[in-house]
C-alpha cells in the first residue's frame, strides 16, 4: 500500500521493539468474537491507472455537451482558473481546523477576510466561518431565531427552496417549534397581506430571489416582522444576486443565510458547497459556527485566532449554539478567492450579465406562441415560464436538442404542472439562448 510508508519489515521491527510478536497482539484489545477474520468483500486493490479509467468511465455516463438552464438553488457560473491552483496548495487543503494559530495564520487570515466579505455582500455586521450549505444554514437560522427571541412560531414562505423547507422541518420537528406557511401572490412574491405575524412569531423566513426567481420586497416584510418583535431571516440561494440587488442586511434582515456555491464553487452534483451565515453584532453570541477574530502577540504583532468558542460544542457541549464542528473551510476559501478575484467590479459585472441574459431570454421566449412569464414580480436570473403543455413534456423534448431546459415545478408544486423554472447565467452565450428559444418554438 503506497500510502503506508513503513515497509512490512519496518513494521515487524517496530512491533518487536514494543514487545509484540505480531500485529494480532495489538488487536487482542478487541474481544476475539468481534474481530473480523475474513476479507471485507470490497475486492482487490485497484491500481492508479485502472482507478482513473474507472472514474472516467463513470463520468462518461453523466450528461455532457448539454446546454443546461437548470438553477433552483445551484448555478452554473464561470469559475476563475486561479481558484483551483490556490486552494490546491497543500498548506490549505491538507491542513486541519486552525486550532493552533501559530501554525495556521494562513487559514485564519482568509477566514477573517471571508467573514468580512460576507458582511459586505449581505449588508450585515458579522459573518461566521461557514456552515454546511444554504439548506442547513436556514435551519440553523431558525434555531438561532428561536434562541434570540425565545419564541417558537415561524412563518416560512412557500417560495423558500422546497428542499430548504424540508431541512427546516427535519431540524425543528423535535423542538416544539411550529411553522406556518406564507403563500405567494399572483406576482410570484410573498403575499404580504396574508402574512399573520403575531407576538408569538420568532421570525419570518423568506428567500430572495425566491424559488420562482422573484425578488421579494424585503424592507416591507422586515418592517412587518420587526413591528411584532419578530426577526426576518432571509435566505439567498443564488448568492450572485447580491452583486446586483440591495443586500438583505440593508433591507432590515436580521439573519441572512446564503448558499455560497455561486462564488466559484463547482456544481459537483450538489456538494460540497458553502453555507454563508451573517447577522447583526448584537446576536453574535447566539450565532452558530466558528468565528475568527483579530489578536496580538506579546510583541504586538497582529494575528488571527478562533474566538468566541464558548458558543461551540467542544466547549459548551449540549448548551452550544449548534452541533456543527467540521464546516466547509476549503470551500469558504474558494469563495474568498472568487470574491477577491472578481472583486468589487467583477462581482457587479457578473451579476449584471446574469440580469441581462435572463431578461433577454425571458423576453424572447415570451414572444413564442403559448409561452408566457408566469409571474410579474421582478427577477434576477431565473424566471418561471407558463408553457402550452406540461412542463415535464417540454423538458423531455428539449433533451433531443441536447438542452436541459430547466426545473419542471410540478414535483415541488403539484398545481404548477405547466410551469418551468428557467435559469440563465453569464455562461450562456446568446447563441445558446437563441437555440433554447428556437427549440421551444418548434412544435
Amino acid at each position, binding site marked *: 500500500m503506497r500510502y*503506508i510508508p513503513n515497509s512490512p519489515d519496518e513494521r515487524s521491527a517496530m512491533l518487536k521493539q514494543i514487545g509484540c510478536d505480531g500485529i494480532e497482539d495489538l488487536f487482542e484489545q478487541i474481544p476475539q468474537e468481534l474481530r473480523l477474520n475474513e476479507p471485507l468483500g470490497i475486492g482487490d486493490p485497484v491500481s492508479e491507472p485502472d482507478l482513473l479509467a474507472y472514474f472516467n468511465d463513470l463520468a462518461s*455516463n453523466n450528461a455532457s455537451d448539454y446546454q443546461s438552464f437548470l438553477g433552483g438553488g445551484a448555478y452554473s457560473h464561470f469559475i476563475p482558473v486561479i481558484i483551483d491552483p490556490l486552494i490546491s496548495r497543500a498548506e490549505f487543503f*491538507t491542513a486541519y481546523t486552525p486550532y493552533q494559530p501559530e501554525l495556521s495564520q494562513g487559514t485564519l487570515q482568509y477566514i477573517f477576510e471571508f467573514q468580512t466579505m460576507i458582511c459586505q455582500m449581505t449588508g450585515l455586521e458579522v459573518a461566521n466561518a461557514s456552515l454546511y450549505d444554504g439548506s442547513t444554514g436556514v435551519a440553523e437560522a431558525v434555531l438561532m431565531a428561536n434562541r434570540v427571541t425565545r419564541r417558537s412560531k415561524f412563518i416560512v414562505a412557500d417560495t423558500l427552496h422546497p428542499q430548504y423547507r424540508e431541512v427546516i422541518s427535519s431540524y425543528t420537528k*423535535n423542538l416544539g417549534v411550529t411553522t406556518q406557511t406564507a403563500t405567494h401572490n399572483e406576482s410570484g412574491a410573498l403575499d404580504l397581506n396574508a402574512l399573520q405575524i403575531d407576538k408569538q412569531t420568532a421570525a419570518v423566513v423568506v428567500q430572495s430571489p425566491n424559488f420562482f426567481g422573484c425578488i421579494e420586497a424585503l424592507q416591507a416584510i422586515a418592517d412587518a416582522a420587526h413591528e411584532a418583535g419578530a426577526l426576518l431571516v432571509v435566505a439567498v440561494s443564488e448568492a450572485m444576486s447580491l452583486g446586483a440587488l440591495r443586500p438583505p442586511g440593508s433591507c432590515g434582515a436580521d439573519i441572512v443565510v446564503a448558499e455560497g456555491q455561486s462564488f466559484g464553487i463547482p456544481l459537483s452534483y450538489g456538494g460540497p458547497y458553502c453555507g454563508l451565515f451573517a447577522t447583526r*453584532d448584537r446576536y453574535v453570541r447566539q450565532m452558530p459556527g466558528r468565528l475568527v477574530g483579530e489578536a496580538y502577540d506579546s510583541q504586538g504583532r497582529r494575528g488571527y485566532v478562533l474566538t468566541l468558542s464558548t458558543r461551540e460544542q467542544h466547549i459548551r457541549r449540549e448548551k452550544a449554539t449548534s452541533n456543527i464542528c467540521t464546516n466547509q473551510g476549503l470551500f469558504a476559501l474558494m469563495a474568498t478567492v472568487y470574491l477577491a478575484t472578481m*472583486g468589487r467590479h467583477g462581482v457587479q459585472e457578473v451579476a449584471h450579465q446574469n440580469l441581462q441574459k435572463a431578461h433577454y431570454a425571458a423576453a424572447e421566449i415570451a414572444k413564442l406562441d403559448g409561452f408566457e412569464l408566469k409571474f410579474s414580480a*421582478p427577477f434576477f436570473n431565473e424566471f418561471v415560464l407558463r408553457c402550452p403543455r406540461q412542463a415535464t413534456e417540454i423538458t423531455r423534448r428539449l433533451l433531443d436538442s441536447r438542452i436541459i431546459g430547466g426545473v419542471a415545478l410540478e414535483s415541488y408544486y403539484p398545481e404548477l404542472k405547466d410551469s418551468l423554472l428557467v435559469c440563465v447565467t453569464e455562461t450562456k452565450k446568446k447563441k445558446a439562448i437563441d437555440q433554447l428559444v428556437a427549440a421551444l418554438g418548434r412544435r
Partner: protein
Amino acid sequence: MEKSRIKKASTHVIQHEGLLFEESRPGRIGYSLPKLDVPDVPPSELVDARLLRDDDLEGMPELSEVDVIRHFTRLSTWNYCIDHGLYPLGSCTMKYNPRINEKVARIEGLANLHPLTPPPLAQGALEVIRRLEECLCAITGLPAVTTQPAAGAQGELTGIMMVRARLADRGNPRKKVLIPDSAHGTNPASAVICGYTVETVPSNAEGGTDIEALRRMMNEDVAAFMLTNPNTLGKFEQNIEEICRIVHAGGGYVYMDGANMNALVGCARPASFGIDVMHLNLHKTFSTPHGGGGPGAGPVAVTAELEPYLPFPRVAHDGQGLTLDFNRPRSVGRVRAYVGNYGVLVRALSYILTHGDEGLREATETAVLNANYIAHNLKDTYDIPYPGRVMHEVVFSDKRQAKYGVRNADIAKRLIDYGFYPPTMSFPLIVAGALMVEPTETESREELDLFIDAMKSISSEAMEDPELLKHAPHTTKVGRLDEVAAARKPVLRWEPKDQPPDRAEGNI
C-alpha cells in the same frame, strides 16, 4: 533559546502580507469575462431601482490576478499541513490525502454536474453513491447507509433523529440520551437538536464505560446511548456487547460515533458489536482532505430496523437504471439539500477502491501499531492516565511536567519549534492536561522517532528551563496570541480605519 536539540526544523525567510482590503487599490482588475452579447438594458428598466444595490460594493477588494495569487500563496506559507509532516491531532485522523482522489473528483463529468440533472443523465454520479454505500455497508456490517449528512456531527443528528422516529413509531420517543464523559462535544449537541436531554455516563478506571452506572441510568426514558468506539482515549470498549444488551433490554438504541473507525476498518465490523446506528467521518477514516476546517461527509449506517427512517431521497434501481427514490413514508426527512457532499463521496470511494480489502486492513493495523509505538516510547516520559495497549491513538497528560509549572499547552507550543503540529488538548475532558496523539498509518518510523525525540527533549526542557516552554513557540511568524483579549473585545471583520466605529461594543 536553545536550538541544538531541534533536529527536524529551522527557520527561513517568509513574506508578509496584509489583508485583502489593505492590499486593495482602486481600479485594479483581476477578473476576465466575455463581453455581454445580448442587449444591455439599464437595470432599473428591468428591476425596480429600489430593489437594486446602490453601494457600488464599496469596501470590496480591488486586486489584479497577480495580487490575488501572491496574497493567497503568501498566506499559505504560514500554515502547517499534513504534507509538511506529522499532524498528531487525536480524534482527527490527519492522514495523507491522496492526490489521485483530488484528480478523480475534478474529472469534468463528475465535477460539473448539476444536482437537479435528471437521473437518466446522471447515472455515473448515482453509481458513485451506490457503490460507496455498498462499500460502507461492507465496512460497518450494517445493511443500509445514507450519504446525505455533510459531516460527522450531522451524521449524529441524522442518526438520533432516526432513533427518535423509530421510538415514536413504537409509541414513545422518550426523553434522554446517555453519553459517556469522554465523548466529543458534538454528541450531546446533536442529541439536543433532536429534542433530547443529555445525561453523562461516567468512565471506569480503565477508561471504558462504567457498566454499572449505565445499568443504573438505563430506563424507559432513555432513547439511546451514544458511544464512541474505540473511545477518545484510544481504548476499545471491552464491554460493548454487554452495553448493547443493556441498552436494548431497556428498549433503547445504541449509536456509535464512528470518528475512530481508523482503528477498526477491515479488522472488526461494528454491526457485530450489536450497535444500531453509526456515522463515519469520510474526512477522517477515508482520507478526504480536511481543508482547514472542512468539508467533510458523515454517512450514517443503520440496521434493517432503522432503514425505513433514512433521509430521502435514496439511490435506487428502477427498471431502467439508477434513480432517486423520494417515496420513503417513514423517512426522517431531508437533512441537507440534494445528495450530500458528493465531491467528498467521490474521494472516499477512490480511497476505498485503491486500498481494496487488503489495503484497508493493512492501514488499520499500521495505524494501531504507530499509536502503540508512540505510547510505548513515551510512557516513561509522560504520564498516561489510562495505561496499556491502545488502538489508534494515545492520550498523555501533563502531570509529570506540571510539577515544573509546565502545562499541556506549553508542551504543545514548544512542539511547534521542533517542527510539529501539536496534539489535541480540548478533550477528552476526563483527562486533565490532555495531550491526545493520533499518528495514523501514513507516518513513517523516522517521523515517529523524531516526534518521540522531540517530546522527550521537551520534557527535559520542562525541568531545565520551563520559561522557554511557557513562551514558546519562538520560531513562528507570530508568537502566542492573546486569545482572552481577542474574545473580550472581538474584532471579527475588517473595517476601513477612517470609518467611525458605528457598532456599540457593549452589544458584542
